């Protein structure tokens, strides 16, 4: 500390229409320091990054870079001023069909004063200079499309560093890297830190954060909810500030389950991860919580047959269960409401009724001809049961709000009885009332099946589940009955704290 901040943001605000996304953000970045920014989905991290990198205009507030006002109108201006951002999607940062050397010098091709023709020899010499400065050992003649994700990431960062920035923003750079690849990235970051670059590092991965952070800033609902710079850093405090705790929680009365429906023994879902064993009982709602990237979706997909486990066995009702596809899982009574409904749930060309019947066309047809009446009846029943707000079952999904779209997705899989009902982030992009409706419906209909929900927000788990399992590093690290929960222990497990290493 002590040194003046090289980059300073004060009272930054931003609204989209009625919706305030940033409610007065103040942030400082110091030379030669890695500041980690943590925040759940929708906390406003990407909006903040986009304002700093010149993509969005800010609503209110000031930004200063090295003592001067910093007010980029375009991303190019931000880069010229010395604030460079490497975005989450690696392929946005490189041109796949060109070689490494051209990628490293790409910005000079289009900048002011660039010559009309380019000499390959000059390009290579310049690229070599950039690569050497970064300690990059990639063949400069290789095509970027032939490189691994990690190497592409290195090229994207090296390309960013060719501008000799004062501030470097890395948005979830390790989200698609293996741990060995991430190690290479970390040593690169160490080198940059040594060069005196101020780095803003956005991540959910606790292992990254422990490895890199000099300071941690937590964001929640568009404001800074905690800043930590006392060594040793208070990681649990940071997670707690990011996830927050509400005073008003709709607590549930936790139920016990008598009989097991689903069991998993020694299930391994990622290289080098510890095995998972669990039992899910009839009538209970179990929530699995953990930060983004700890393998929640991988586990959900493994149970649903879309992904193969590396090891281990599963049983449904005592019988071996090893689904090879979604089709086999559905036949065994295992249903999944997948994460990200726009991507993997909603059929855009279909109305509500057809979206609901989609997985059950065989049951809704005779001699393969659709029974439209049965379809309509099922859709109307589901619309009533879940309180979907619409004009009729013929409405297009694009006419519905996010919460109602999600209700249709849940309705789809509740229109037939299941044995194991899995929901992956069912409350994402869903308003509070729709969220309560869905949670209440899940609990009310839980008899006769096991229900498993995957959520990042602990509040959502507390509001919905009888039992909460905590995931970290692709395995389950804790289990809690949702009654008199020891929240400190739960948060420590989410943060992958000492309890995990002891386990």
């Amino acid at each position, binding site marked *: 500390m002590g040194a003046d901040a090289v980059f300073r943001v004060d009272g930054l605000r931003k609204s989209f229409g009625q919706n305030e996304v940033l409610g007065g953000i103040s942030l400082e970045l110091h030379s030669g320091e890695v500041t980690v920014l943590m925040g759940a989905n929708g906390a406003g991290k990407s909006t903040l990054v986009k304002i700093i990198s010149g993509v969005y205009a800010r609503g209110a507030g000031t930004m200063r870079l090295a003592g001067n006002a910093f007010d980029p109108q375009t991303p190019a201006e931000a880069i010229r001023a010395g604030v460079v951002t490497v975005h989450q999607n690696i392929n946005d940062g490189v041109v796949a069909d060109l070689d490494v050397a051209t990628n490293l010098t790409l910005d000079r091709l289009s900048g002011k004063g660039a010559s009309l023709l380019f000499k390959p020899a000059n390009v290579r010499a310049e690229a070599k200079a950039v690569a050497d400065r970064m300690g990059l050992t990639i063949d400069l003649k290789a095509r970027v499309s032939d490189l691994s994700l990690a190497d592409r990431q290195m090229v994207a960062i090296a390309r960013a560093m060719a501008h000799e920035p004062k501030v470097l923003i890395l948005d979830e750079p390790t989200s698609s890297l293996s741990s060995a690849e991430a190690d290479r990235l970390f040593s690169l970051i160490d080198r940059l830190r040594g060069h005196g670059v101020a780095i803003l590092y956005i991540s959910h991965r606790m292992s990254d954060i422990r490895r890199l952070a000099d300071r941690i800033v937590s964001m929640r609902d568009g404001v800074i909810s905690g800043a930590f710079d006392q060594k040793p850093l208070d990681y649990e405090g940071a997670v707690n500030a990011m996830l927050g705790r509400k005073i008003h929680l709709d607590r549930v009365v936790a139920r016990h389950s008598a009989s097991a429906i689903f069991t998993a023994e020694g299930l391994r879902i990622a290289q080098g991860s510890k095995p998972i064993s669990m039992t899910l009982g009839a009538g209970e709602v179990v929530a699995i919580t953990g930060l983004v990237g700890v393998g929640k979706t991988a586990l959900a997909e493994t149970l649903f047959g*879309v992904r193969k486990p590396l090891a281990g066995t599963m049983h449904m009702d005592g019988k071996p269960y090893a689904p090879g596809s979604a*089709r086999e899982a559905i*036949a065994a009574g295992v249903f999944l409401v997948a994460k990200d409904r726009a991507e993997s*749930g909603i059929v855009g*060309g279909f109305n509500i009724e057809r979206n609901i019947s989609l*997985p059950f066309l065989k049951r809704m047809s005779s001699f393969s001809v659709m029974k439209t009446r049965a379809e309509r009846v099922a859709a109307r029943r589901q619309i009533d049961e879940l309180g979907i707000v619409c004009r009729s079952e013929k409405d297009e999904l694009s006419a519905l709000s996010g919460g109602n779209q999600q209700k249709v997705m849940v309705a789809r899989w509740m229109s037939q009885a299941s044995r194991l009902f899995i929901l992956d982030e069912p409350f994402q992009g869903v308003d509070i009332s729709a969220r309560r409706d869905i949670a209440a419906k899940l609990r009310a209909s839980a008899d006769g099946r096991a229900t498993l929900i995957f959520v990042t927000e602990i509040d959502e788990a507390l509001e919905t589940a009888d039992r909460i399992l905590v995931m970290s590093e692709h395995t389950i690290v804790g289990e809690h009955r949702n009654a008199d929960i020891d929240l400190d222990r739960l948060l420590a497990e989410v943060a992958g704290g000492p309890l995990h290493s002891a386990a």
Partner: protein
Amino acid sequence: MMRDYAIRYGFIVLLVGLIAYFAVAADGFVSPQSAVFIFQSVAITGVLALGVTATLVVGGFDLSIGSVATSAMMAASYAMVVLEQNAIVAVIACLVIGVIVGLINGWLIVYMRVPDLLATLGMMFLLLGLQRIPTEGRSIATGMTMPDGSVANGKFSEAFLALGRHRIDFFIPNLIPVSVVVLVVLAVLIWFFLEYTRFGRMMYAVGSNERAAELAGAPVKAYKIWAYVISGVFASIGGILLAARLGRGDIASGNNLLLDAVAAALIGYAVLGAAKPNAFGTAVGAVFVGVLLQGLTMMNAPYYTQDFVKGAVLVVALVFTFALSGRGKR
């Protein structure tokens, strides 16, 4: 609301208006014979267009339909003229070609991950060349000289030619050609299949959101391959009708089949504001083009303006689909 009606019924109104105009302006346009002629003129392209509609439904495309049709035509001619086989063998040979080409297209696209346009473009080229190899580039007709100097003495069987030339009595004697009956039957079949069976429903789901369909338990790869098989088989049926109409394996025929068929299917997007591939729209699209060309011909428009007119209709239809309905999504 006005806009909704324009999108929904605009194209049908245009078609009715066109017919009314020609009825007044062109003598003899309104007669059973003229109507039959229109249907006959679009029968082959219509059959191909219905097939390509199946691939459009799953979010693909099939550029090889034209060359599948001409390959089938050459194969039927070769079977009857050179190998001296009967009509049934010739028909089966054509259908087998359609199935095999469809399977290869599907395999290339689904398992080899070749983009649909490129895979079927490659297949189009391959078939255009392949159909010339057995006769070293010659057209096939009875009495032709083979590459080895012998003379081919087989001839088209009467039963086969009937597919292209026989007319069925319908109130008026000798009114409706078999090819029109084939078109209508296939149109009803594919329309029913796509709209009312669970397979058709799932094909639309695959075309709209492949991952959602897969997570709903659909064997997405199989559906895609089946779509190309349907397209291949329909194209080969088109080829059978072409061979039966011409009565020879004409190496130079069938040039316009692909473009006309694709145009009909794309015009179909605009019919009833569907904004998506659909069998009814495809059939209306084919008839629309037929009406327009027949009317213009009867008003003595020169033949070389035909492609221009078809192109203009297609562009207008695409504007209807993508700009007006605002659901631009192939």
